[in-house]
């Protein structure tokens, strides 16, 4: 059960981050001041991929809620870092970003850490 919840949380986080990254790049830069945040909310409401990203974020959060109910916090929080592995992979394959050796090595080290957490 715990790996199903971790999987759901990670898949939803990765989907949300990819959708946000893809759509925000198309939307242009936003500041984080009060006016910038209002503009950001307007952008979210207009762009369906961003609405989908928020929905994925909600799924990820509810999975995390269910996970911390049945599993230790010392497992649930570090396990959420598994999203780094898939985000790195999909950033390369889907968003065609440049993934350097350091970033790829980091993702592999995270993978080793998650495997150790689970055993």
């Amino acid at each position: 059960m715990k790996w199903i919840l971790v999987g759901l949380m990670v898949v939803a986080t990765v989907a949300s981050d990819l959708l946000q990254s893809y759509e925000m790049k198309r939307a242009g830069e936003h500041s984080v001041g009060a006016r910038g945040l209002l503009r950001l909310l307007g952008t979210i409401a207009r762009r369906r991929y961003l609405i989908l990203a928020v929905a994925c974020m909600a799924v990820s959060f509810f999975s995390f809620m269910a996970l911390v109910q049945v599993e230790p916090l010392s497992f649930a929080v570090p396990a959420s870092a598994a999203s780094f592995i898939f985000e790195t992979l999909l950033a390369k394959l889907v968003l065609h970003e440049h993934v350097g050796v350091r970033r790829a090595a980091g993702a592999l080290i995270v993978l080793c850490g998650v495997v150790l957490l689970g055993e």
Partner: protein
Amino acid sequence: MTATKEKRQGAGILRAYAVLALFIALKAVGNLSLAWGMKHFPQVMSANPLPYLRAMLDPFVALGIVALILALLTRMALFSLADLSFVLPVTAVGYIIAAFLGKIFLHETVTAQRWTGTILIVVGAALVGSGSHKTEIEIE
């Protein structure tokens, strides 16, 4: 002129560290409060959304959610003050803090293997973060 610029830069760095400390504290409190509330919530979560909504009315769960939302906003503010390559590695320390909080407040057993796994995740996350920024943004 240079002294004024240095003074402003120093204040900017100080502000970035203050926001960073606030983010780490909010995230830690949020995770702990959420975990505490969920572990004491009588109903087990399932695919049904109703128990989640009921759980949100629990004071500890609600406090956790508010703290995590504030942490998210603080993180956004932090991105405007400092480089992503600085923010991601430093905030990865949160994984270790979560393990400590679990051990101290929730009396969880954290084995040597779990500590090793957590430390590897922090190192890996720091490496991923330090190599993933798009452009250099100077601290104000």
